[in-house]
């Protein structure tokens, strides 16, 4: 088994800089964890609230390494047949029917049952060969010739049984297909698992992975993210926008606005040609940030304070630059 070819980075910082070229702005914690994942050849378990860029990380990593991203979205009831492989039963049956005459030919001249069986045995693997195999994401990831980034998204949504099954794959990067034998990875894929914490993952899984928790980013980092992803947005507007979002995260909400929502909002502001974060504008566009009716009500009630905080943060920032 070969290892995934990764360019030689001199260290986590270097790697972090490389990630930035993929428009992914990450903290040092993220950079170090992924860097280690690559070098220790360990799967990386990424946890954190929804929308902080867990899936984005996998995408950025794949494009940075220049390998395909194989994504497996988990859901309740996901099983091996959908995750690993399946036989194309329809095709198998169809072929046996179409090849019936051919089979008849083959059998000609066989005087006894044993002889006929003997002849059949010579061909019995035919219908359980590669051409009848339907690879699903996990098998696809193992057979990628140049390696890949395998993203097992929202593993917490899958059943515990599936998680147990995944352990086999994660420790040896190989799986057995009874009819074909053991399939081991051509190139060891870089595995990223993400979880939103709807269910506690098993200790066994955690043990096998490196662990990375991505929290909501700090203001400076988030400003940088907004700047990279939505460069059209004016700097002062980005500052007050990020400060406002941070103010919202301090409130007691059902679902806090994540980075993806900040970016959505930034794009909205660009579309609306806004040049200042006015209260009316916020009122009108708040639904881009908050997705629950109750949250919007809570935020509107606390709007003056949050706005004030955002304004002063923007002033401080302006004074500094």
């Amino acid at each position: 088994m070969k290892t995934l070819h990764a360019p030689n980075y001199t260290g986590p910082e270097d790697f972090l800089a490389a990630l930035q070229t993929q428009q992914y702005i990450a903290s040092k914690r993220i950079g170090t964890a992924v860097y280690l994942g690559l070098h220790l050849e360990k799967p990386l378990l990424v946890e954190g609230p929804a929308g902080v860029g867990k899936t984005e990380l996998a995408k950025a990593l794949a494009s940075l390494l220049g390998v395909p991203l194989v994504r497996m979205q988990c859901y309740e009831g996901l099983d091996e047949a959908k995750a690993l492989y399946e036989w194309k039963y329809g095709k198998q049956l169809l072929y046996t029917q179409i090849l019936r005459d051919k089979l008849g030919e083959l059998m000609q001249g066989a005087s006894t049952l044993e002889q006929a069986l003997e002849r059949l045995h010579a061909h019995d693997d035919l219908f359980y060969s590669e051409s009848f195999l339907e690879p699903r994401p996990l098998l696809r990831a193992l057979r990628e010739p140049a390696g890949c980034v395998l993203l097992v998204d929202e593993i917490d949504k899958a059943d515990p049984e599936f998680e147990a099954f995944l352990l086999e794959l994660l420790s040896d990067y190989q799986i057995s297909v009874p009819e074909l034998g053991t399939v081991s990875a051509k190139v060891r894929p870089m595995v990223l698992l993400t979880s939103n914490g709807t269910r506690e993952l098993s200790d066994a899984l955690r043990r096998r992975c490196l662990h990375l928790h991505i929290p909501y980013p700090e203001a400076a980092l988030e400003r940088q993210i907004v700047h990279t992803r939505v460069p059209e947005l004016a700097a002062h507007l980005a500052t007050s926008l990020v400060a406002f979002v941070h103010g919202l995260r301090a409130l007691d909400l059902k679902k806090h606005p994540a980075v993806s929502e900040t970016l959505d909002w930034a794009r909205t502001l660009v579309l609306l040609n806004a040049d200042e974060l006015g209260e009316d504008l916020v009122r009108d566009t708040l639904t881009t940030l908050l997705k629950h009716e109750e949250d919007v009500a809570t935020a509107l009630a606390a709007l003056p304070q949050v706005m004030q905080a955002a304004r002063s943060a923007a002033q401080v920032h302006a004074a500094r630059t």
Partner: protein
Amino acid sequence: MQRALEEFVLALRGSGLEPGLSECVDAYRAARIVGLDDRDGLREALGATLAKTEPGRAIFDDVFERYFSFTMFDEPLPGASESDPGADDVAARPPTDARTPTDILLRMIETTDRAGLAGRLRAAEQQVGITRAWLPTQRGLYTRRMLEAMGGDGLIAEEHALGSLSSPSAATALRISRLRAARERLFEEVRDHVSRRLVLYGKSATEKLRDTALSTQRLSNIERRDFDRMLRLIHKLARRLATRHALRQRRQRRGVLDVRRTLARNVAYGGVLFETRWKHRPISKPKVIAICDVSRSVASYARFLLLLLYGLRDVLPDVRSFAFTHRLVDVSGYFDRDPPHIAIERVLDQVGGTGTNYGTMLRDFAQQELPKVDRRTAVIILGDGRNNRAEPEVAVMRELHKRARRVVWLNPEPRSFWALGDSEMPRYAPCCHTVRECGTLVQLERAVDSLLRSTGSNG
């Protein structure tokens, strides 16, 4: 480095993290990759490999700060460098001039040579095996041993020797005061260091001791202040059971081609097999009804039994929980809404009381729930079966036994008490598939494990 990491892992264990061997190996490799120069980098590397949950990470950061800080000999010896001319002398002297080992140590202390002292300290730690220290009372012992290993004895010996001279010269007096200052300082620093280490290493041993004690102690003897610890143990237990249980279910899952039904289906196409039919093994999703006695007679157990009910919800998908003193009350709602502390107190507050009556409870059950009990239902009853000599309604139990897949009775009392006094266990027991004693956490785990084994299997 390996040694430092090993000790660091010990310190982590002391704080409640439990990194396994493979994780330690990973941590070692990770530390080699990022190097030791960059403290932040090292923290991130070790954190990613050793702490696997978010709360665990917080503990890790705390221990990292404490372990990898060397706060000893932070300040120079008070007054030494300014007022004591000897100190300047010593510092100015070339190192080869230090003749005796005592001189070397003396100079290290006086010039606050942190690197040199740290080296000695590490060596001494290894020599005395400080990681084995775990009781606060061992502080004095380890401090003395450490001092000895660092060469502190030489300071004392020389001080004594010089002090016993009959007519000390001025130089000797100066030397004595220097020796004393150095000795006192070294003693204080080493003692503080040992205390810090005791906090790091000591906890793990004591914690483990308390955990084992708790899991074998009778639940009724466990005090309220241990509630949090119990909660954690029970949670752990529930998760362990969940993992075992998940593996068992997995084995029963996969469907294969159903040849018989496929052939039958495709007769319509003249035997050309177009449509496939699959064998489906129905996954049994057991319904569980748990009934918990919360009356005064089992009050000390009730808290833990309820805790177990709470924990069970993680393991079994469909648990309905009831509590009773004499009337049956559905408490599933409490468990869904509130964290365990609050939910349990609320249940005890509203349902608990005196005058246990299994008879009325069973009558309620017969009215409300019995019709819904079928071959997929498992019923768990937690209680001592002490009925205050009221009508036991054994008929309901018999009916339940007939309808349900399993009836399990978990009794917190020792088996020998079951037939004594007002206990109806001898009459209820024949109506149950399993009757178990579960007075301690260990017994509880066995009981629940066997319960899962039977509810998880296909019926």
